[in-house]
Every structure is written in structure tokens, then in C-alpha cells.
């Protein structure tokens, strides 16, 4: 019986540590998916949340201002202004009309993104690339 206790305790310790690490990890890195409409409806409450929003890049909305890149995302008639201030250069696929995913935070109705993923609006199986791409392969 003694042995069972020992094994049980050790296992509980290991699993407990890992669960603790996992919960901490989830709290720290959770990113909430939101639609553009939901973002517009959000007031100040979600300021600290890490958010991810997707939409089409409005034609002729991209403007560059030093390191900053400004553009507008459109999703079902809802629009939001995005400022990209990340470190990585934007992906090759980032252009007018492309589908883009932006990660960042909402401040005063403008979305401040630090990571952009973009996908060609091609009708074929074009896989997207990212600002920090992890690539496309066939598995």
C-alpha cells in the first residue's frame, strides 16, 4: 500500500506542476478572436485583452508613416482602422484586397497590431504567409 501512496504523490506532484504551468500559460497568452463589429461595439472594457481580428484590407487604405503602417479592415460593412507598429516587416502577401489577420490591442477605437498575417484573395488554394511565417506545407 505504501508504494501506491508514493507513486500517487509523485504523479500528483508532476501533474500538478504541469497543470499550474498550463493555466499560467493560458492566462498569459490567450488571444480573443473578435469580429470587426464586436470590436466597434467594445468600449473601454477590453483594453487589456489580447485580440485577434480578421477582415479584408480596404482598397487604397494602406498608408505608411515611417515604421507605422495604417490601413482599414472591412468585414461585412463594418470597418476598423488598424495601426501596425510591429518589428517584423509585413508579409509579401499584404496588399489591397487581401485577407488579413491582425493581433494586438484596442485603444480609443483604433486597433494597434503587433503581428499581421495576410492571405492572398486568390480563388485557388493559396496558403497564407505571416509576418513571422510558419509556412505552408502539405501535410
Amino acid at each position, binding site marked *: 500500500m505504501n*508504494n501506491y501512496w*508514493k*507513486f500517487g504523490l*509523485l*504523479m500528483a506532484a*508532476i*501533474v500538478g*506542476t*504541469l497543470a499550474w*504551468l*498550463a493555466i*499560467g*500559460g*493560458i492566462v*498569459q*497568452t*490567450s*488571444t*480573443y*478572436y473578435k469580429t470587426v463589429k464586436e470590436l466597434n461595439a467594445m468600449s473601454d472594457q477590453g483594453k487589456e485583452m489580447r485580440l*485577434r481580428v480578421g477582415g479584408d484590407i480596404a482598397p487604397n487604405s494602406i498608408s*505608411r508613416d515611417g515604421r507605422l503602417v495604417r490601413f482599414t479592415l472591412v468585414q461585412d460593412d463594418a470597418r476598423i482602422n488598424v495601426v501596425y507598429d510591429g*518589428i*517584423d*516587416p509585413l508579409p*509579401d*502577401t499584404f496588399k489591397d484586397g487581401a485577407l488579413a*489577420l491582425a493581433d494586438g490591442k484596442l485603444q480609443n477605437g483604433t486597433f494597434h497590431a503587433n503581428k499581421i*498575417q495576410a492571405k*492572398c484573395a486568390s480563388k*485557388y*488554394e*493559396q*496558403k*497564407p*504567409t*505571416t509576418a*513571422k*511565417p*510558419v*509556412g*505552408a*506545407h*502539405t*501535410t
Partner: protein
Amino acid sequence: MENIGSLAILLAFCFAVYSVLGSLAGKWARRPFLILSAERAVYCIWALLTTAAGILVYSLITGDFRLAYVASHSNRAMPAVYKFTSWWGGQEGSLLLWAWVLSSYSMVVVYQNRRKFRDMMPYVTSVLMGTLTFFLILIAFVAKPFNVIMAGKGIVDAGDGQGLNPLLQYWTMVIHPPMLYMGYVGFVVPFAFAMASLITRQPGEEWIRTTRRWTLVTWMFQTTGVLLGAGWAYAVLGWGGYWAWDPVENASLLPWITATAFLHSVMMQEKKGMMKVWNMVLVSATFFLCIFGTFLTRSGIVQSVHAFAQSSIGTYFVGFLAIGISGTVFLILSRLDFLKSEAQLESVLSRESSFLFNNLVLLASCFAVLWGTLFPVISEKLTGEKISVDAPFFNRIEVPIAMFLMLLTGVGPLIAWRRSSFESLKRSFMWPLAGGAFVAAGLAIFGVHNIYALISFMLCTFVTVTVAIEFFKGAGAIQTKDGGSLIGAMVALTHRNTRRYGGYLVHMGVVLMFVGFTGNAFNQNTTVEVAPDESFQLGRYELRAGALESGQNDNYTWRRLPIHASKDGQSIGTLVPENRLYIAERQPMSEVEIRRRLNEDLYVNFAGMSADGQKAVIQAYVFPLVSWIWIGYWVVLFGTIICLTPSKTRLIFPRTEVVGMAEKHARVED
């Protein structure tokens, strides 16, 4: 042409169904000829699928753009080798590859065991063919590789195709998908054997050895596939990383983890008759995770940069998984008496318990990866909010797990079976521990202060010393007995017990990979906009841009920027990163240039032109120790091949010893 291909797939489907039903009916009605004909059907299926695949490849190479698949994955300008790899460049083709690889494996299994395991084979065949039937349903009725977009008579010229995604036009991509598929698909075979042994209540350990060998072979392919993917990400994607915890990467890692756990815990079953239920669970989990991984990449349920276009085939996978898992669970539960353990755990300090913890931790890591990958799906179901977790989540859990596993890698081989005492542990671990502490202290003095890196290097030294001690001790004994050189004695030692010493070599390879992973803690990078003749600094390197060159060929236009590099004032040559624009796909792509050295890689990426078009955007990185990951892989491969080589001395385990009258007639095999 395409009609023959479609017909071949349809026929293969019929044959697979026949093979499943035939072998089961033959078994139940005791008709050996029916069983035999079901096995022959396996050969026919292989021939049919080879024909279908051959036609698809022929169409790709000759550029038959009437076919939808060819038009969207190939074009005229691509080099022939990439026209060939377009076979698995898209959904339909890669499913065909899946089916073809599975039929090839099945053929080998049926041929190898044509005189062995006669009572089990009908079930093995039916599990293999049942799985194949599922994939043939997909390619025969849902995702057809031979769809024609231009039908009708008199079409002479069919224009040009879309071409293969430029990211996939790279040499590792030629072998990465087939390797990964050989890994994924190969795990069907151990599963088939496990199920058959359950159904027939197979006595003895013969079948588990067959299963172990198959698992080892497929594990080798899976490892190769995963690392080729990592190498490709490193060399092609231009951000310098090799692993990003992307859902599809995770999907390939999950069955690898459970297979690794199985390869360890199966020793407990072979030597002690323990953990039988557990091994069944691991073999089944590996199989279902393979199917699940395929499902994850095809259905688009999680957002991934790898994922294929969303398609309807996800439902089919869910159905197959549901049926398969419930069947397996039922089978295991109904055979619990057959899977009873023959021994008890006696002590916390024992080899058994180290295996147990190894398995626990591997499974925990598998679960963590699965949880993180599916988190968006789970959270949406539970809270209505779609939440994703990022790479830091995975790193936070997996790094401590990996370190704990490293510790067990060192501890396991030295600790005694059944029970061990603190005294003997002290004796065995004094030198390895001293070595580890010495290296960590030395590094700390020379200015390494990253705590994870220090622990990692300490554990690496610890494992290295334990493995070295094992080799020297064994070789020393042989040398005293037979004479000869130390190297010769080590080769003889390895040959005597290939499984054990091959296993040590695999562990050494993993240690080398760890050294490479740890290098991550010391990465440096910078992004600059440079005009010709401007220079910038990165760590100890000074980099100066040369004159921009440009040109064009059939496939793409290119720009190159030579970068003259010098280190500590010494010139070390010129790196020429390239920026391409693929014409057919209208997609830009960067070709990085890497100066690979054992201590660190210098990595330069030409990311594009600045907004005003006057300056080039250059990303430069220094990645210490990355090369050791690839070196470690070769050691793992070498070790695995050693494991698969038969030993010179056949191992006789105590539990298979036969004594008394029966001894004369008994034959004990490895």
C-alpha cells in the same frame, strides 16, 4: 487517361471492401482460400493505386491542364522535379499518396507474414484494408484527383496552370511530405497487429516484437519528416525559426510523442509482462492521432498557415474516428483479463518506475500540445468565445517537460530493475552529476546566465557521461576478455545488444539536438534598411551591402543583394540573399543565405524594398548552435538503424527460459 485513373481508384475501393469482408468471412467460416484471396486482393489494390498515381504524375509532368488538379498545382515553367512533387502539393493528390503508401505497407505486411501469424492475419488484413477503404471513399467520391475542368472533344491546347506554391519549391519539400506520410501511415500497421492480437487473445510475445519493429521503422520516418519540416522552415521561411507550435506542426508531433512513449513502455511488456493495457492504449492513441492529424490539416477547424482550403471531408474523418475509437475502447475493455499484468511495481527507485514516469510525462506533454492546439475549438464550445494560445504557452510547459525527460534519459539506463537503493544510485550517479555540475559552473563563470540554458547544458552533460560510462564499462569488459582495441570492443559490444546500445546512440542524438535547441536562448537579430555600400553591425559581425542585381527566368524574376561580411575585422566572404517574384503564382518569396558553422549560423534575409523603393530591407540573425540539431538528427537516425539490426547474441529474457524436460524441444528466439 483520367478515366483509367478514376476507374483504378474505384476498383481499388471495391477490392478493399472485398478484402475486409473476405478475410473476416474466411476466418469465421474457416475457409483458408477465402482468406488467401483477400490477401491477394491487397496486391491488386497496390497495383491499381500505383496505376492511378502513375497517371496523375504523368499528367502533372506532361502538363495535362484539362485536369483541375494539374491546372491548380503545376505549370509549364516549373522544373520537372517540382512537377513530380505537385503529386502531394494539394488535397486530392496527398490523399492519393496516403492511400498509396498504406497499400504499399499492407503489401509488405501481407508478404512478410504469408506463413506467420496465420490466426491473426485475417484481422490484420481487415484493419489495414478497413482504414484504406476509408481513404479510398474520400478519393473515389469526395476529393477526386481526376476531375476535369475542360471536357469535350478537340481541346488541343489547355493553357497553363497555377503552379505549385513557391514556398514548396525547395529540396526538403521534395522528401518531407513522403517521409511524414510514411510515418503517419506506418502507424496503422502496429495498430492492426495490436487489434488482431486482442481479438485472437494472442499468447506469447512474438507479435509484440513484430509490432515494436514496425513502430521503430515508422518512428524513424516520422522523426525524419518532422525534422525535414523544421529544416525547411528554417531555410525557406525567412524568419529563422524551425518550430512555431503551429497546429499542423503539432499534429505531426502528437503521434510521434505517443509512439516514443510506446517504444519505451513496450520494454516493460517484453521483459516484465507489465503495462499491457497501457501499451494497447498507446498504440491505438498513436493511430488515432495520425488520423486526427490528417483531419486537422484538411478540415480547417483550426486556423493554421498550413491548413488547406476548408472542405467538407472533415465530417468523414469525425465519423471514422468515432467508429474507430469506440470499437477500440470496447475491444480493450472486453479483453481486460487477457491484458492482466504479470508483475507488480516494487519500488519508486527502480527501472520500472523510471519507465512509468517517462510515460506519464510524455503523455502529459502530448495532452498539453493537443489542448493548446484545440483551445480555440474548446473555448468556443464552452464559453462562446474563440480564444487561441500562442507559442509562449507551449514553451512554458514543454521546456520543463523536455528537461525532466532529459533527466530520466540519464537516470533510466543506470537504475536497476525491480528495486534500487540510494547507495547504489550514489555510486552510479556520482560522476555524471559531477560532470554536469562542472559544465554548468564553467559556463556560468564564462558569462552564461540564462538559467534554462545552464540547466539544459547540465542535463546534456549528465546524459552524455552516463552513456559514455555504459559504453566504456561494457567495452572494457570485452577488451579484458578478448583483447583488441577499445573501438573494436565498442563495436563488438554494440553488435551483441543492438537494441540497448542503439538506444543509447539515439539518446545521444537527442542530447545533441537539445544542445541545438538551447542555442535559441542566445539568438541575436536586427532589421535594417540599407543602400549600396552602407554597413551595419550585428554582434561580432560587420555587414556591408553591395550593388543590387536583378534578372529573370521562366519561373520567376529575382533581385540579389550581395552582403560582404566580416567578423572581428576579418573578412569571411559574401552572402547573397535573393528576393524572387514567381510569375505564374504572382507571389514574392525570399531566398535566405545562411553561413552555417558548428558554433553559430549567420543568416541573412532580403525581405524586400523599403517603402520609397530606394533601399533594401535586410533582416540579419545570428543563431548559435543550430547546426547541432541537424547533426543530432543524423545520430538519431544512425542509432535507430543500429536498433533495427539484429543482435549477434540472441537475448534470452529470464521469463522465457524453459527448464526441465521441455528444454530439449524449446526454441528461444529474440
